[in-house]
């Protein structure tokens, strides 16, 4: 258990207010658009394809180049001359550049870039770019894209299926043969996004140096830094010739900004031809058309169920719509939840077919709940269907199938190791706080009176701290070259003590607004026995000076489990040196000393103490006084490297995340029987994210994730017409606002500390975004149960209910 390692300090676990907020709420945030790091920077506008699929027959940039105020206009020719295709996660011949080169493959795909003195001029000149297109038939849904006669996105690949893998664990066939019931369903999860307030922002500078090109770029990228080698690969330079700088404030991302790197490359090309640094600030239409989104997925789930309702085997088929290119890190969405594909349930036999399919939609990528939103929508809908088929209570059925509390740490058939949990307790709590059983009776009576009310339930195992090794699964084991495995959930920090005893903490996590600085301060202050104000976290990133590795960044809820663990390691190393220095001053052996209240004290003899800052001062000013063999080093770096995160096995098992938290959610809805307006009446949720580092922040994450889930459940969809035209404004792409998010919420928690992180903390940023869409669907289905309607797709709203009811009553 982690409790032995847990902090004895007084700040961790407190609901401390965010130190980030005063600047943000008084307009003193420093976002990239507020900064002008390179005076003389020019401004770009991007010319984009209006067509979902077309061959580029010719590009005429001359008129735009002659427009007053224009410094350069680049197109496919310049891109091909400067860049190589981005290295993909798979050996699939689907070359990906930041612009269309031979063809355009989605509406909004960049084709040319105009660089001018200002954005207005650039947009004026952009209208003068002439592109000659030969229109091609478009394909937007995976069902159509996999057909034999489907138009091909990438001729060289010969198929629109970018990846197709089959995994088999346990005895699936015999389980299905022996099953009392086989229950199956097909579900589809919509393509949607997180629509951060601040869109993409990039400044790139290309310089020709003696040793070759050097690219310096500012952007609001936040990782995964495995995209840095991908970017460098396209630029044809080493990562050392690429310097990436990320300002302290990022106006949100939720994963979406991981897809910014193609624009960093594109603006580098623009800078090369303009001879000046180039800035591009994405506008909302560009963002909705062509930044990134979570993928839409069609899923077939079938379960072998015994007479008692215990699921003996699962057979799963995922068809992921990754859009026009397999933009790295895709097809990661398919594999992010590989180790927890069986969710909260003890199911030993699993078969999975995973296909990534390219279509004429924009490329997909990270989005809060990555892979889990899709998975749990299918899995939890299936559990409801099993309950209905067997005439069982949906909560009871789930309870019977839970991973038992005594089974932790629990190994899933797909390789996941659930580090800790008490699902039974969490489910019991949520059923009690929601009065679930009683509520269902009351609602049944209300439905008999013609009211449309219902209750839904969803359970989700929330993975955090991704093991990037899962990306390897997309390649068959026999084709994964030996010695070239991938794994890891490493996180880096540097902790430095200055001569006055103030501690600065350099984080490699690149937050997007989560409050990393607040929590980092709590953790380090505790470890070093210092008041909070003596700890100064720095979150801006410069790849030339901040310690980082390919797994760095803020994604997969990795700060709480990983970075805080690295902080503990680094702070403890610094503490050792402080104790040695204090030992000199106190004439006491370092091992007898403890850090507390800004002092270094002899344990058991409280009157014998020196100030922390005096001990630090000795190391800086009088290193000659240190004992022989002790370095005068008051900084320490740590790279937390959990041994549990290893590469996929030869049999394709992987522990795809380091930690696994838990969410149990019950949602009540009411539907107006005339207008079919859906309103959420009450939400009860129980979360387990291990040790709570700051209750205020975790609560914010729960609310945020839930409202993100609400978006997918009732409002948001990046829909495309059959001809491939997408939604492109906030008039049609409906993000829930505070007015939609004011449903009553009763939250509770269970705490099972993780044994694999230093403080027992797990991630908690995504859970409800995974469970909430499923819980809402479950509730709506319940409300409509008299009409025998099954909910298999999202989002749900009056129009959808009207369609379903019209179809149900012929």
């Amino acid at each position, binding site marked *: 258990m982690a409790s032995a390692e847990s902090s004895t300090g007084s700040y961790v676990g407190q609901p401390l207010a965010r130190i980030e907020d005063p600047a943000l709420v008084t307009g003193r945030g420093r976002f990239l658009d507020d900064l002008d790091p390179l005076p003389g920077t020019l401004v770009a506008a991007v010319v984009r394809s209006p067509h979902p699929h077309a061959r580029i027959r010719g590009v005429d940039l001359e008129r735009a180049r002659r427009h007053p105020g224009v410094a350069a206009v680049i197109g496919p020719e310049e891109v091909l001359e400067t860049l190589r295709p981005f290295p993909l996660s798979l050996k699939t011949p689907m070359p990906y550049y930041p612009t269309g080169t031979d063809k355009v493959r989605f509406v909004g795909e960049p084709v040319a870039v105009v660089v001018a003195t200002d954005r207005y001029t650039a947009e004026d000149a952009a209208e003068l770019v002439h592109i000659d297109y030969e229109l091609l038939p478009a394909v937007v849904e995976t069902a159509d894209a996999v057909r034999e006669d489907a138009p091909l996105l990438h001729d060289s690949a010969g198929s629109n299926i970018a990846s197709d893998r089959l995994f088999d664990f346990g005895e699936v066939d015999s389980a299905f043969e022996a099953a009392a019931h086989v229950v199956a369903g097909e579900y589809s999860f919509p393509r949607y996004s997180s629509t951060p307030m601040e869109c993409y922002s990039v400044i790139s500078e290309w310089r020709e140096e003696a040793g070759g090109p050097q690219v310096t770029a500012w952007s609001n990228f936040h990782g995964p830094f495995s995209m840095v080698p991908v970017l460098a690969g396209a630029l044809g330079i080493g990562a050392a010739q690429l310097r990436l700088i990320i300002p302290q404030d990022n106006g949100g991302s939720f994963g979406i900004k991981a897809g910014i790197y193609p624009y960093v490359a594109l603006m580098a090309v623009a800078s090369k031809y303009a001879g000046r640094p180039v800035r591009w600030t994405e506008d909302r239409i560009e963002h909705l058309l062509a930044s990134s989104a979570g993928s839409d997925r069609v899923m077939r789930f079938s379960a072998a169920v015994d007479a008692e309702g215990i699921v003996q085997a699962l057979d799963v088929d995922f068809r992921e719509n990754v859009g026009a290119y397999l933009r790295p890190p895709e097809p990661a969405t398919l594999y992010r939840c590989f180790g927890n594909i069986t969710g909260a349930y003890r199911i030993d036999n699993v078969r999975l077919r995973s296909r990534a399919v390219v279509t004429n939609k924009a490329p997909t990528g990270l989005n809060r709940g990555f892979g889990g939103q899709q998975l749990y929508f299918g899995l939890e809908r299936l559990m409801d269907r099993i309950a209905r088929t067997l005439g069982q209570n949906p909560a009871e059925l789930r309870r019977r199938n839970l991973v038992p509390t005594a089974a932790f740490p629990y190994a899933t058939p797909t390789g996941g190791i659930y580090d800790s949990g008490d699902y039974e307790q969490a489910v019991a709590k949520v059923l009690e706080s929601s009065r679930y059983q009683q509520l269902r009776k009351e609602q049944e009576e209300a439905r008999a009176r013609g009211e449309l009310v219902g209750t839904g339930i969803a359970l989700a195992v929330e993975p955090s701290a991704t093991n990037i090794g899962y990306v390897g699964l997309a390649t068959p084991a026999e084709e994964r070259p030996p010695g070239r495995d991938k794994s890891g959930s490493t996180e880096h920090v540097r902790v430095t003590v200055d001569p006055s005893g103030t501690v600065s903490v350099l984080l490699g996590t690149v937050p997007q607004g989560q409050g990393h600085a607040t929590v980092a301060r709590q953790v380090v202050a505790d470890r070093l026995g210092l008041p909070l104000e003596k700890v100064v976290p720095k979150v801006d990133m410069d790849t030339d000076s901040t310690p980082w590795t390919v797994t760095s960044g803020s994604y997969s809820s990795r700060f709480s489990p990983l970075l805080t663990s690295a902080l503990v390691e680094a702070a403890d190393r610094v503490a050792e040196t402080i104790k040695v220095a204090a030992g000199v001053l106190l004439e006491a052996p370092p091992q007898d000393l403890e850090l507390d209240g800004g002092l270094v004290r002899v344990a058991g003899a409280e009157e014998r103490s020196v100030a922390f800052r005096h001990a630090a001062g000795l190391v800086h000013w009088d290193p000659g006084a240190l004992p022989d063999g002790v370095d005068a080093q008051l900084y320490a770096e740590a790279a937390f490297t959990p041994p549990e995160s290893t590469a996929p096995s030869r049999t394709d098992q992987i522990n795809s995340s380091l930690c696994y938290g838990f969410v149990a959610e019950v949602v009540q809805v009411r539907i107006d029987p005339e207008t079919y307006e859906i309103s959420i009446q009450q939400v009860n949720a129980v979360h387990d994210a291990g040790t709570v580092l700051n209750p205020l922040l975790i609560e914010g994450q729960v609310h945020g994730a839930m409202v993100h889930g609400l978006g997918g459940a009732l*409002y948001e969809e990046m829909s495309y017409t059959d001809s491939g035209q997408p939604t492109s404004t906030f008039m049609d792409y*409906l993000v829930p606002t505070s007015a939609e998010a004011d449903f009553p919420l009763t939250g509770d928690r269970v705490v099972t500390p993780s044994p694999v992180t230093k403080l027992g903390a797990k991630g908690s940023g995504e859970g409800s975004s995974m469970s909430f869409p499923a819980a809402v669907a479950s509730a709506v289905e319940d409300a409509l149960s008299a009409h025998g309607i099954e909910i298999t797709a999202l989002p749900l709203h*009056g129009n959808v209910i009207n369609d379903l009811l019209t179809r149900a009553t012929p």
Partner: protein
Amino acid sequence: MKPAPFSYVRPTRLDDVVGELEEAESAGSGKVIAGGQSLLPVLAMRLGRPRTLVDITRVPELAGLREEGGSIRIGAAVRQRQVEREAAQRIPLVGHALPWIGHREIRSRGTVCGSLAHADPSAELPAVALCLGAVLTVTGSRGSREVPAADFFTGAMSTVLGGTELVTAVRFPAPRAGEGFGFGEMARRHGDFALAGAAARVRLDGGGVVEAQLVGFGVADRARSQDFTGPLAEAVSRHGQDEKALTAVMTEAVSEMAEDVVTAGDAHASQDYRRRLIRVLGTRALVRACADSRRRAKR
């Protein structure tokens, strides 16, 4: 998302506004800008490219919000929010409708006359103007004319306004004795344009219905008004204040109006769903208007 080049003038006299519009017309095209809440997105997306914008919000003659012969007269520079704050009680149907327009921030810039001139088929104010029989004052170089709302709207985003004319004011009649109002709409989110909506005005005299007007919006190229005096009078004489019975009978009557709804439908609402909404919201608005009339009579 940056507008094409344009020039901008902000006169302080109505004559100059008209003069600037004339001049702009001869030089290409001019456009009035009031609150900018509908026009700026059009410019930013380059869906419109007027050469000159004539800002009317600094013209003192257009700033008035006052009673005038049994009506409330709202000048073209008056923001929706000001009406919401200062005149909602005096023109109750306008008061019911205003909170449904976008968000407070939008209403504090958007003007009442701008919404009428813009003539969005899903907008609340054109429907309310139709229901109340509002009268618009239209001014151009040849002087001013009075146009009843029923004659003003000619289609989706189109009105009888000429290229160099502007709406200088609108007059909404204050409630007459026995009048009552009902309003309702359905949008995907708070503040979105309505998928469909309904505004109703009824007049009762000695318990009997002597006038009933229902306007549906969001379902055709412009708001549609229909007289329901006959059916409502009969329903009320038979069922009195029994709202359940009234609703059942009126749903039948409003169904016919709903069946006339012909729209292409979109991802947010099909034609069939819009018909349902008009039926439900229209009926509710009429029934509410009856109750409202009785409530007012008691005061």
